[in-house]
């Protein structure tokens, strides 16, 4: 590199300039080469699509870590990039739906609400959870709700029962106790729907009989 200037006395300062550029280069290039972002394991087009969804979620105030976590899990399971993008897009849309229904709730509740929708609940079934007391959140209710549907409890029954428990002011321990009993019965071999019907009647603040239809032959079992 040659510098043409009027005074030879200016050469040292230009040398310093080039030295600074070289210093920056030596620091910047390894940093670029390392690229610690785990999303880089995706193919470029899938990575771009996932990042676009993450940016969109951030822009809308949605918890983008839900999408990032989905992508990272897909990468860990060595799932095809296109399938990862499909899942991220699906969850992004569920987050938007949950946000539209629940309003301004925390990110964790939005993720839990999206999970309930993902499990198979209908969007309008989330609506009763919008009204809430101060300092009360629906994380336990949503978590148990999604679990029950995932384990095979009919979606309508699980939705109406969980909603009623929530509206009756059931606490976290009540939801957790219900889940513990139902999954225990399922593990013992009981049909998920029957196990749920049995246990919901034992639960404090249980829903009224006309909301949840008990299975045949179990109508006269005592409650609590």
């Amino acid at each position: 590199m040659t510098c043409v200037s009027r005074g030879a006395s200016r050469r040292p300062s230009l040398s310093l300039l080039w030295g600074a550029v070289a210093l920056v280069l030596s620091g910047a290039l390894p940093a670029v080469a390392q690229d610690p972002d785990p999303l880089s394991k995706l193919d470029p087009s899938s990575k771009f699509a996932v990042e676009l969804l993450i940016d969109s979620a951030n822009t809308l105030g949605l918890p983008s870590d839900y999408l990032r976590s989905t992508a990272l899990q897909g990468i860990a399971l060595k799932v095809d990039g296109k399938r990862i993008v499909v899942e991220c897009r699906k969850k992004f849309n569920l987050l938007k739906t949950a946000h539209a229904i629940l309003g301004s709730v925390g990110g964790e509740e939005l993720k839990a609400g999206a999970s309930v929708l993902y499990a198979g609940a209908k969007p309008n079934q989330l609506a009763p959870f919008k009204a809430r007391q101060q300092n009360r959140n629906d994380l336990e209710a949503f978590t148990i709700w999604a679990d029950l549907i995932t384990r095979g409890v009919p979606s309508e029954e699980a939705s109406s029962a969980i909603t009623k428990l929530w509206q009756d002011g059931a606490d976290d321990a009540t939801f957790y106790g219900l889940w513990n009993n139902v999954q225990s019965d399922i593990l013992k071999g009981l049909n998920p729907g029957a196990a749920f019907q049995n246990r919901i009647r034992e639960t404090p603040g249980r829903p009224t009989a006309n909301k949840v239809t008990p299975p045949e032959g179990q109508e006269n079992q005592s409650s609590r």
Partner: protein
Amino acid sequence: MIDSELDPYVEWIAREARRPVVTDQAARDRIMASVRAEPLPQRRPRLWERVLEPRAFRLSPAGSALIAAGLVGIGVLAGGFVHNRDGGLPVGLSPIAVVPQTQLPVSDTVVKFVFVAPQAGKVSVVGDFNGWDSTKTPLVRAPNGAVWTVELPLSAGRHLYSFVVDGSWSADPSAPLAPDDGFGHANSVKLVRRGSAL
């Protein structure tokens, strides 16, 4: 009119001064060339003049490429500093930035993960708290040989996780299930409140 202007000598001088001078064009060119060849008066330039003075550079293609690469590097570093997709700390500039982005910055509660697998040779836990990396959080086998445990600080909230037992993913039988993640596998859910875990 003053008296001096009437003086014949003054008039003569004035007339001579007003008369056009006829010079040889070649001589004029020689004179001007000599003037232009003279160096400009030297004055020590001020700092701002030195900074603002235009300069001409000649760069080789390799040099140009080197500078371009340097500018790209600066851009990448600056971009990482001012923008982080997850709203976290920038990557590559701070010691904290070497922590994976998915790791939660605040740990509210120490959560104990327990998995019973007497026949397993290796058990680890993966989740949204460690970027689903099976190498990051191995469980330790208890002295009785059947129970594997690890304690992990987690922030308050809802966490998805799974155990990896000898390379196979397995949900926690003692925790609620999350729906199928779309990849053919259902994770477990850990709810962490400040100071306690479900």
